[in-house]
């Protein structure tokens, strides 16, 4: 697996030679080498510590990163944003560094459980700060701008929330399993109600903040973690019902939700303005065919914001149906291995946390892949390891580090030690 990934990563910077040599000041192979090299170094560092994390996780991520880096690089050339490819390579290297640092220095991950309210508050504070002091892009206030770099705190808030949820669910798991009707008094019910109200408020805030993708993602993660922890199908069904009603009300009262839905049903009706992006994406998909146009040969640069929201479509156009199926298999493998970590974990907190992180990858990929292929209303969230953007990459690698740590400390080592 590692070798295959290495070939792709090295191939990536060999291929950059073939890209049109328009811009002398930037030498693509240097950044290709940086990307591939940092991947190798991270891989060696993890193994050097004799950490027994899942050996498949990092190669999967590197596969996605290196394929999409090529795409981002060539789209950068097409849109004349020449710094885009190099920037992405540097971000990747930095994120890998953070990942290795987390693995090395984050002692025992169970400590995270003790600080669950710290994570909750930290997340809330970040979110409130961005609402107050953030900058708006496209009508949504979701970014900090510090020294020319945009930071999207929600990328980190979501990790904080998952840690909190894992800890909370573990603490109250027996109560939560009782559901509404219990003879144990009012306290168990209170845990459930608190959780429900908290999630509802968070969802509403996100919708009002116009971050529909994140609202959907948070809902998905929450429901997955809740189900795995409690196994209460009736409550899950009830949540779906209530959320459905909530979604309908949001659609009724928020115009930006209506716009998204109308745009999804018929993007051509609003071709001139709001539908333009989706229409171009459809044209791009239409051009893909079975085998695609070949890397660097697409015209996906016509899609506005292609590297952030529509990298997946650009990849589809270039790799074709077969190529993108391979890429999706990469995502599936990553998600499956993350769940594998949850299945191996000896500790319930570890298992719930790993489930949360795995479903983060799964839902996030699912929502955006369905969004850009017009199976769901389009929401602007990133595809983990594939979309351009430093925050998204960093957050994805942090999640990967957490999963690795859970496995290394609690899963493989114990399992192997215990059984063999």
């Amino acid at each position: 697996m590692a070798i295959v990934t290495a070939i792709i990563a090295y191939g990536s910077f060999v291929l950059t030679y073939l890209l049109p040599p328009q811009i002398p000041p930037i030498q693509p192979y240097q950044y290709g080498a940086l990307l591939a090299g940092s991947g190798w170094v991270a891989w060696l560092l993890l193994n050097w510590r004799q950490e027994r994390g899942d050996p498949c996780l990092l190669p999967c991520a590197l596969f996605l990163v290196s394929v999409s880096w090529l795409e981002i690089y060539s789209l950068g050339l097409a849109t004349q944003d020449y710094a885009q490819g190099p920037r992405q390579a540097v971000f990747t290297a930095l994120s890998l560094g953070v990942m290795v640092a987390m693995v090395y220095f984050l002692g025992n991950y169970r400590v995270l459980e003790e600080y669950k309210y710290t994570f909750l508050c930290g997340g809330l504070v970040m979110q409130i700060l961005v609402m107050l002091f953030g900058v708006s892009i496209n009508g949504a206030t979701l970014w900090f701008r510090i020294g020319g770099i945009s930071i999207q705190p929600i990328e980190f808030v979501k990790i904080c929330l998952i840690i909190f949820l894992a800890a909370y669910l573990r603490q109250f798991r027996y109560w939560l399993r009782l559901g509404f009707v219990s003879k144990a008094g009012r306290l168990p019910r209170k845990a459930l109600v608190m959780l429900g109200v908290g999630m509802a408020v968070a969802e509403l805030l996100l919708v009002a903040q116009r971050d529909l993708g994140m609202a959907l993602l948070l809902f998905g993660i929450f429901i997955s973690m809740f189900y795995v922890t409690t196994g209460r199908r009736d409550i899950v069904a009830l949540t779906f019902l209530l959320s459905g009603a909530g979604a309908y009300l949001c659609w009724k009262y928020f115009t930006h939700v209506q716009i998204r839905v109308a745009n999804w049903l018929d993007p051509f009706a609003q071709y001139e303005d709001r539908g333009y992006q989706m229409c171009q994406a459809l044209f791009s998909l239409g051009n893909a065919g079975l085998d695609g146009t070949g890397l660097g040969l697409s015209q996906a640069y016509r899609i506005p914001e292609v590297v952030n929201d529509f990298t997946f479509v650009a990849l589809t156009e270039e790799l074709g149906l077969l190529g993108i199926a391979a890429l999706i298999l990469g995502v599936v493998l990553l998600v499956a291995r993350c769940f594998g970590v949850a299945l191996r974990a000896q500790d319930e907190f570890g298992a719930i946390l790993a489930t949360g992180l795995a479903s983060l990858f799964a839902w996030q990929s699912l929502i955006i892949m369905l969004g850009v292929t017009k199976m769901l209303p389009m929401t602007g969230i990133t595809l983990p390891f594939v979309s351009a953007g430093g925050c998204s990459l960093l957050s994805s690698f942090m999640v990967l580090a957490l999963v690795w740590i859970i496995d290394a400390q609690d899963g493989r080592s114990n399992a192997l030690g215990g059984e063999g």
Partner: protein
Amino acid sequence: MRALKERARFLAILFIFLLVLPLVNISRYACLDNEELLRHPRNHYGAAESDLLGSIVDRQGRPLAFMKEGERRYPLGPAAGPLLGYCNPVYGLAGLEAQLSERLQGFSVPRSLNQALLLWDKRDRRGDDLQLTIDSQLQRRAYEALAGRRGAAVLLEVPTGEILAMASRPAYDPNFSALKRDWARLTRDPQAPLVERAGQGMYPPGSVFKPLIMAAALEEGLTNPQAHFDCQGRAQVGNFVLNCHDRHGMLSLAQALAYSCNVAFADLGMRLGMERIRQWMRTFQMEGRLSAVPGAVTAKLPEASNPSAPAETAIGQADTLVSPLHMARLAAIIARGGLDIEPRLLKAQVREGEEIIWQPPWPQPRRVLSAQSAQLVAQAMLLTVEEGTGTAAQVAGVQVAGKTGSAENPHGATHAWFIGYAPAQKPRYAVAVILENAGGGGRYAAPCAQKILKAALASQP
């Protein structure tokens, strides 16, 4: 703990299935069902399918639009600009390029066995060439004849109904470099240079409508060649006063057309009534689309119902709107002695430069008018050019028949119209010219039509 892991395993399997879902729509849009997307007029990809796009050629096979070094070239420049439209990755598709893009990309193969094979080699096959009935020489001459004016000209080959020229001004050069230079001006110009006027312009017909009224009145038995009219310069229809541009005095039916007497035709119009006028416009095929002229508009039939409406409609005012192509067709019907042949712009779709894979169905000539009535109208139109309002259309050595028109409109001076055909005895070419807000048809449009007819007659082998 065990139950928890069971559920996590269930969730993992669920996700594995869910994550494959995007492939449903990807395979739909990318492979199975992408023809509609690829043909969508907004799709700029067709414009950029560079050298694979087929050429557009004229009736002699001379290129009108072709790919060279990844760019679409238009040798005629603005002379055929609004007709052909443009095709490039920046501004997309317009005009015939847009309407024919499907054929030019060569996608219209039978949707059966080939479909599966097409998944593989669609992008590698060169599109088909498209032959038009246009004659690029005459197209250029027609465009030059309109110089300095706003307006349009249509030239038809009478025996076949093929369109030899469709010029429109103001025009634009569809070559990419020119388009890039002029784009801001073109899109903002109130004179709308991007509009193709010959087939898609809608104008009040004015007096060029009178041959139709005359033919209709003759066919309905409401008048006869011996009829005569007394023009006192004005006519009263109910409480509506209709002015004639002259006090013609006593006129025969043929003279009423030749001198374009409003009083006489208001009388004929009142005898016909609105319903029969509308019916005759339908008989002359002014309503409906043309299968072999993409984009050509349907005429707007008159709807007014006030008591004087038939009189106004009969002199081509009121709310009737027609295109120059409709009027050229009218002239051609008279020229053929009452036979109608549907005008055609598309000639053939040629694959790999040799095999004709599609042709518009050969139109059956249809009799819409008895030979006698047509002959009477033809004689009156001949008189128009010999001594009536259309003397400026005379061509030395050839008899020309025609009709002038000066259509009042809300935008200023009258639109100058001329329709006609030549030679009168054995008609070969029919023409329609409109010059927007130029003034009188006899003074402005007739000389312009004369130039076009002269060029056409000189070109014949």
